[in-house]
């Protein structure tokens, strides 16, 4: 390489080498191993829970009539919501040419793929006979069986299927150039073969890049309406029902906002330790965390507005059952859940107005954890408070979770962590080629 090549070449190395070295050269480290073991234990808990569920049925959970949707559906809605921010960061911010997203989109997309995968387990396990879940799909069969196309549950099945598949495709296609980098920089035979196979022979030829760029752009354009539709479909599972508290047109946008809110919180929960543990401070900078915190506050305010709107319309609409439900939420048996939600999702995030809090990583991490927890409580509140007292006093009844309910929740967190830890170990956590592109376009303009 001659002297005039040094600046560009060195700049390109400076963004490629630290990220690929995390995967290729760095030992896992004690922190990673501890987290890995813990997540395996929790995943084993989920696995044994699933085994017991298949043998004994959904009766191992606390669900009953009238509260037939308990933890499982709350977990499902919670996890799928967490996935949304990943798609939003990588697709919507790509379309609006927010170049700062390049440091965040890889791990955010991984978060989406894993959160959606984990969430998809719950509705299937909740079916009662999970081994027949494929009956939801329209396929030729000898039972003359077709799915019910008018049901929002079927729409949801299609939405999750499309969302999971498109998220995986989007994630994998975006990884191809980086997998090629790992293949070319790998030193051991095993890793050369591993990354070589995954990279599919990617070479970065000009025409490769051209098709790649077209595909990325259109996929991003498709992913944005997809993710909005998915969370609307999740909301329609509820609002197509006639129950007070569910039967409202507010739900689709409310769920989209809630999903973004929990997703940005999870992006901070994962991003802050990731950045610290791997020393990625040059890539995920203070400015990135600040932007995520601002986004968290902004979508949090939309969620808070929805809470106010829900209460307002219950009284403004004048429907006695809606009013009764709202009073029940604020003061009934589950009111502590409602007020915990308010504490986490309304009050705690107001601290993010302060620049000092946004700049303090421990505070930011804690607030994000609080929001993630608050969003779980919100999902639980929406589901259970509508079911436990609907129309007739004869069908009132409480929900009491069992240990298995908690086990599935904790176990699903373990599975998510396990997948994320493997991702952080085996794949580049920052998109190297996008950073190189930023370097390349800077060198051209100078």
């Amino acid at each position, binding site marked *: 390489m001659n002297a005039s090549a040094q600046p560009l070449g060195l700049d390109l190395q400076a963004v490629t080498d630290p990220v690929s070295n995390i995967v290729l050269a760095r030992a896992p480290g004690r922190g990673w191993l501890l987290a890995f073991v813990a997540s395996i234990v929790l995943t084993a808990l989920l696995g044994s829970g699933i085994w017991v569920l298949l043998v004994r049925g959904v009766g191992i959970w606390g669900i009953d009539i009238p509260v037939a949707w308990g933890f499982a559906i709350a977990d499902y809605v919670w996890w799928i919501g967490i996935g949304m921010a990943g798609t939003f960061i990588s697709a919507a911010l790509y379309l609006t040419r927010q170049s700062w997203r390049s440091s965040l989109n890889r791990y955010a997309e991984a978060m989406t793929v894993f959160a959606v995968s984990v969430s998809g387990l719950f509705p299937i396990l909740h079916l009662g006979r999970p081994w027949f879940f494929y009956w939801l799909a329209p396929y030729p069969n000898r039972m003359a069986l*077709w799915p019910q196309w008018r049901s929002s549950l079927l729409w949801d099945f299609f939405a999750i299927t499309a969302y999971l598949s498109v998220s995986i495709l989007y994630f994998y296609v975006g990884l191809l150039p980086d997998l090629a*980098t790992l293949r070319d920089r790998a030193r051991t035979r095993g890793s050369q073969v591993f990354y070589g196979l995954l990279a599919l022979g990617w070479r970065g030829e000009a025409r490769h890049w051209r098709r790649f760029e077209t595909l990325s752009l259109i996929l991003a354009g498709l992913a944005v309406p997809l993710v909005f539709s998915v969370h609307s479909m999740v909301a329609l599972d509820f609002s197509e029902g006639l129950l007070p508290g569910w039967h409202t047109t507010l739900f689709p946008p409310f769920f989209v906002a809630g999903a973004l809110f929990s997703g940005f919180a999870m992006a901070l929960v994962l991003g802050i330790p990731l950045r610290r543990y791997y020393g990625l401070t040059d890539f995920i900078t203070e400015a990135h965390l600040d932007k995520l915190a601002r986004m968290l506050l902004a979508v949090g305010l939309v969620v808070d507005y929805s809470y106010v709107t829900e209460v307002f319309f219950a009284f403004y609409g004048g429907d006695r059952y809606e009013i009764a439900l709202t009073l029940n939420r604020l003061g009934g048996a589950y009111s502590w859940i409602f007020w915990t939600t308010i504490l986490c999702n309304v009050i705690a995030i107001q601290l993010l107005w302060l620049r000092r809090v946004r700049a303090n990583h421990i505070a930011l991490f804690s607030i994000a954890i609080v929001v993630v927890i608050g969003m779980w409580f919100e999902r639980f509140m929406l589901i259970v408070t509508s079911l436990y007292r609907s129309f007739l006093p004869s069908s009132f009844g409480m929900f009491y979770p069992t240990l298995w309910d908690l086990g599935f929740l904790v176990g699903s967190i373990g599975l998510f962590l396990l997948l994320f830890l493997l991702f952080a170990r085996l794949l580049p956590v920052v998109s190297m*080629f996008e950073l190189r592109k930023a370097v390349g376009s800077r060198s051209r303009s100078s």
Partner: protein
Amino acid sequence: MSGAAEYGSLAEFASVEALRAAVGGLRKRGYTRLEAYTPFPVEGLAQAIATSRDWTAVAMLIGGLVGGVGTLALQYYSAAINYPIDVGGRPDASWPAFIPAAAEMTILFAALAGVVSMLIGNGLPRLHHPLFELDRFSKASRDGLLLVVRADDPHYDGEAVRRDLSELDATHIETVPS
């Protein structure tokens, strides 16, 4: 000189401008089988090399239409022809209720078609390539801007090509065995 033993000649350039200039220079000299390898997408480089079409967008449009119209047709066939059920007097062909599944499948099929067409268009997956034999080629995914003149180019003559490449400010030139 026979091109059978060679895949082509590889040159490295120091900057994106030099690479672009080299592509232009080689095109002017009549070479057509060029390949440029860069560690990041360079806008317009593919168009400068060859007037090939990029079918990705078209494939995605077709995929989306097949997915969307196909799902609508499937729902119509299932609900109105093959197994009509009267649910509370609603029409068999409940078009508004058919839209959500069709919309999701539009996006899924468009994405699948896009990925498949990108891979086919790029000749992937591919387990091996002559360029992978070169140590220098690993720079293409890290910090190097590489240009290859393929030996199957009608104008290809190893010595002349390498002379042309050095006239175009290549910082390094080598032969790629096939």
